[in-house]
């Protein structure tokens, strides 16, 4: 039996645990030629976190995008799931779900190509404006539009997929509660308020807490792909910062420090979030 486990065990040790040790370079002035024998510099890389202005920009962009996502993307699947749930025609509902889940399976490169074809300089909207003799507008490479745009893209791509977990929670609500509420004279809105929302409160709280725990994650590919069009000042987030400073720029020790701090904060937030979820009377994620 151990022979079946062994390859997977080796995989997890080598590719998931060994890199953790690699984080020691955050305390080194790492150079690829010396490898892990590079000189130790203590916390010098971490001191630079506070003096390098680019770190501040990346952190601010990360938090701003996360906050916008929390305000606009987080409620979207809940509202959409309630809408789908109120559809009486089963076949129409299934058709709608097929359409809404699709973009989840399409890569960010393609999604952004699609958006560019609609909103970009030579895209559909500008074609439309040009035909009407009006001024064209390039939404895709305007730094001021970048953050709302990124959030809109996430809403477009992932809202449908996000409804799955809400819809699952909705099916677990006892149907007799609705009937009883209707008998007592509650109309559709009151049933939504007094039966449906309390029924999915647990899932919503859990999702909210998990989202808060991953507040430093904004997704690498989506941002990376559109960063050049608007510049680093508007678009750099912690993950892209680490990539460009470390792998492109060769500032290994410093970018590892940024990554390590981000990972450390994320780990603390996950555990704290789980505690809070349990305190709310939920089951917690683990």
């Amino acid at each position: 039996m151990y022979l079946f486990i062994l390859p997977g065990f080796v995989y997890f040790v080598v590719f998931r645990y060994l890199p953790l040790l690699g984080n020691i370079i955050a305390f080194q002035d790492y150079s690829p030629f010396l490898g892990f024998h590079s000189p130790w510099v203590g916390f010098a890389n971490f001191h630079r976190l506070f003096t390098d202005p680019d770190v501040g920009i990346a952190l601010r962009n990360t938090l701003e995008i996360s906050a916008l996502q929390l305000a606009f993307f987080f409620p979207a699947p809940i509202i959409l799931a309630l809408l789908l749930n109120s559809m009486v025609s089963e076949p129409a509902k299934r058709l709608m779900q097929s359409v809404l889940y699709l973009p989840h399976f399409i890569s960010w490169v393609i999604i952004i190509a699609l958006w560019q074809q609609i909103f970009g300089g030579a895209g559909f909207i500008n074609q439309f404006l040009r035909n009407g003799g009006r001024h064209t507008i390039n939404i895709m490479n305007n730094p001021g539009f970048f953050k709302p745009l990124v959030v809109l893209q996430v809403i477009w791509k992932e809202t449908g997929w996000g409804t799955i977990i809400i819809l699952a929670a909705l099916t677990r609500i006892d149907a007799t509660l609705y009937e009883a509420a209707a008998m007592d004279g509650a109309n559709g809105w009151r049933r939504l308020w007094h039966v449906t929302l309390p029924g999915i409160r647990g899932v919503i709280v859990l999702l909210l807490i998990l989202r808060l725990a991953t507040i430093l994650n904004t997704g690498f590919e989506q941002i990376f792909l559109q960063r050049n069009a608007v510049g680093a000042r508007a678009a750099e987030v912690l993950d892209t910062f680490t990539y460009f400073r470390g792998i492109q720029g060769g500032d290994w020790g410093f970018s590892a420090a940024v990554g390590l701090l981000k990972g450390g904060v994320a780990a603390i937030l996950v555990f704290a979030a789980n505690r809070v979820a349990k305190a709310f009377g939920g089951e917690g994620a683990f």
Partner: protein
Amino acid sequence: MARRTPAYPPWMEKPSTLARVGKMALLAVLAFLMLFPFVYVIAVSFSSYMDVLGGGLILVPKHPTLEAYRAIFKGGIVAHALWVSIGLTLGGTVVNMVMTVSMAYGLSRPAVPGSHAVLALVLVTLLFSAGIIPDYLLVRNLGLIDTYGSLILPGAINAFNLVILRQFFMSLPSELVESARLDGASDLWVLLRIILPLSKPVLAVIALFYGVAHWNDFFRATLYLNDAHKWPIQLVLRQYVLQGGALANAVALDPNQPPPPAQTIQMAVVVIATAPILIVYPFLQRYFTRGVLSGAIKG
């Protein structure tokens, strides 16, 4: 006259016409917003010079042509990248499945000492990752930069899929396994002849998810492949569609004819890169709506 049974339960008041029409209009707008970009891109990919130069909005090309697709499939970087992606998707998924099935099987059997510790080791990885820099250094120290191993090995097992599969294996009736073992069957025989045939649906959905992830993989390829000749379709798509790279080498253009418009070729690349996902999508959907995932989301 036969009475139609209403689609809503008897205690519910009859939905007002206004509410029904309003909801239908809202859903129609949503469906339009989701589907329009796809329709538009497909239309542009089939349009000819006359359509593009005409300057009008292309929703149905007046002079449809396959020129762009012909130019792509005749050879060049895009065609090569498509082969790379097909190979990576097939090869990568085979590695994923062998590794995941094997480990899930080993961890699913009762009373294997230490298996709980190994499972805990796996579950912890769901909560954290080491970070981009250490992952990159590991791949480089293993000598995998610019090899396809760098795209397959670091993601050989998805811990989520492993847990789902292990749970499914454990839910199978244990009498089957025990009676086979009494007849002297080996562990491998039990896996191949009893467990796997009973697990076809869950194996199919996990393989599809792995396959889609390989086809869509952009992050690892960006990190680990410097050599542009080795690029899969997603990176090539970025260079020629998002960054507007010159298409002369990307596709095989006929020197005796005016080339198709760049926009048309770009959109044809997008359509081709999306097609495999659209083809497997109905199969994927059949499974995830049937709750293979809803049970797994909260494992």
